[in-house]
């Protein structure tokens, strides 16, 4: 049996490859077991590759008959490292800007002033060619994830704690006393096209106080 990779004459017209000398021509596989072994290993790699490509496609596509049928298997393969989310500004980019403010309450019942958290971020992002994730993503995605979570779910409780920690990190001074509550106010201002005559009125949503518990957890 002729060795499969020596059937093709070496390509002499191609330019010599820098670094080629480090990789000499392949050794002939003369024994049957080595050929079978290589074939098995190659088949396994090709199978895994095909599966990876299928998962990549199905995870990126909208939920469909196929992905719903195999949702358990898809999750098993894709979570947590092969998550695909390419809805970049799609189907539509956000058409409103969100301003998030927060205030703190101390044990004595003293309520601090509203502090605009997003304004801090916008000021940091302004004229910075490479903004930090902490200013461009953290509050934006944390709030988006909180809003998108099921009310009362464990996920929402975790995200609430995340937002509370973020607020404390941003506005609680080192000399301040122990806080007992955090409140958020979310102001949503719709963007309007220049030719639009619709009146713009921001909607304001004030969240209930989140009570801070001693062990670093919260409740509403």
């Amino acid at each position, binding site marked *: 049996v002729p060795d*499969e990779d020596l059937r093709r004459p070496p390509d002499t017209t191609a330019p010599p490859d820098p670094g080629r000398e480090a990789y000499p021509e*392949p050794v002939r596989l003369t024994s049957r077991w080595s050929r079978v072994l290589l074939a098995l290993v190659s088949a396994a790699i090709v199978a895994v590759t095909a599966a990876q490509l299928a998962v990549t496609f199905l995870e990126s596509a909208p939920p469909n008959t196929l992905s719903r049928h195999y949702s358990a298997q898809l999750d098993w393969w894709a979570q947590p490292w092969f998550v695909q989310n390419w809805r970049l500004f799609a189907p539509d980019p956000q058409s409103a800007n969100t301003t998030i403010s927060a205030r703190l309450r101390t044990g004595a019942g003293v309520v601090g002033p509203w502090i605009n958290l997003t304004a801090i971020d916008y000021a940091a992002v302004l004229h910075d060619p490479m903004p930090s*994730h*902490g200013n461009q993503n953290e509050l934006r995605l944390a709030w988006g994830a909180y809003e998108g979570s099921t009310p009362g779910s464990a996920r929402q409780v975790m995200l609430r704690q995340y937002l509370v920690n973020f607020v404390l990190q941003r506005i609680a001074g080192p000399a301040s006393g122990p806080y007992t509550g955090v409140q958020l106010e979310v102001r949503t201002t719709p963007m309007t096209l220049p030719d639009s005559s619709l009146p713009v009125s921001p909607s304001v949503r004030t969240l209930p106080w989140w009570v801070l518990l001693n062990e670093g957890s919260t409740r509403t």
Partner: protein
Amino acid sequence: MITGARDQVRDWSERTYASLTVRPMALYGSAVLRIGYGLAYFGFLLREFPHREALWGPSAAWSPALAHQYARSADWYGWIKSWYTLLATTDDTRFELSYAFALVVCAAMVLGLRTRFTSVAFMLVVTTFSARDVFLGDGSDNVLVLMSIYLAFSACGRRLSLDSRRRSRTTDAAPASSRRLATGALAELAEVRRRAVTVAHNAAVVVIGCQMCVIYGAAALWKVQGRTWQDGTAMYYVLHIDWFRVWPSLSDLIAGNALGTCVIAYATVFVQLAFPFAVFTKRLKYVLLVLLLAMHLGIALLMGLPVFSAVMVIGDSVFLPDSFWQALGRTARSLRRPRPAPSADVNRSGFDRGSIIWKGRVRYAKAIPEGCPGPGHTPGTRDA
């Protein structure tokens, strides 16, 4: 007729199998990906260095406790949960050491130092930093996680690396045929391993290419469902999102041009939609690569997303053939050649002297056909 067809099929499958097992594709392409992603993450970690404690440290808003709770609540294997929470530590020293380790790994990735191990370490770094706070990452983190995993399966250190430089030196020193003389079961096993590595590398390159196509295809198909991308006003809204208004006056200037933003919105959708199919063409591919490059430059500058843009452009570069990178190297060297004393410069960089690149040039000079711009041409006459 049937016998002929069968022979052809057999011939084709044998050739395909041979090239799959002994011909690693895109060795320069994967090396460029290695360097690019290493640089991108190195730059990212440097940029976030002053904020590292607040983003991923023991005192981060997404606290180590939350990170562990998140992993615990997931339906994953125990070892994946441990991997996922590797950076979620309450120990300051361990965190600082991890950060230093991550920077060193990124630098080693760029240089191509011990790439077999470095590429796996790079995957660990990118995945654990991304998993430390999964709500912190944008598209760039998502792409980087995927690419770092794929690259770990590739032979991305065989070109443009300190590894290849060292290997070519040691191979020069040893008798050239020493390896080929080895026979017996062990030598065959070593060869099977070598070919399996080639198969894995080729698979990784294919997956990287397909991943880029999926990104663009999905991004385009999500967009065509949106009303604003249909009526061409999407760019107006994108340019008014406060989180991405780095240069507001520039954003306003572009957003103020309704026709221009409409054209950009439509062009974005069509370019992204066409890309997965155009990569199979010879010329259109390059047109689209240039358009995508322009799009990403715009995103990087206007929206303050340079890491995302860099990550996407580097991913696009996997579609450039090795001959492109070799030609680029030749051009760069021929531009440098007229200098009176290049050796001093080369010595200082420590990268070119005595390396494969240097040898490649000398050998290539003989192989260039007449009339091709090559090392013999000076920059002044190159375009003449």
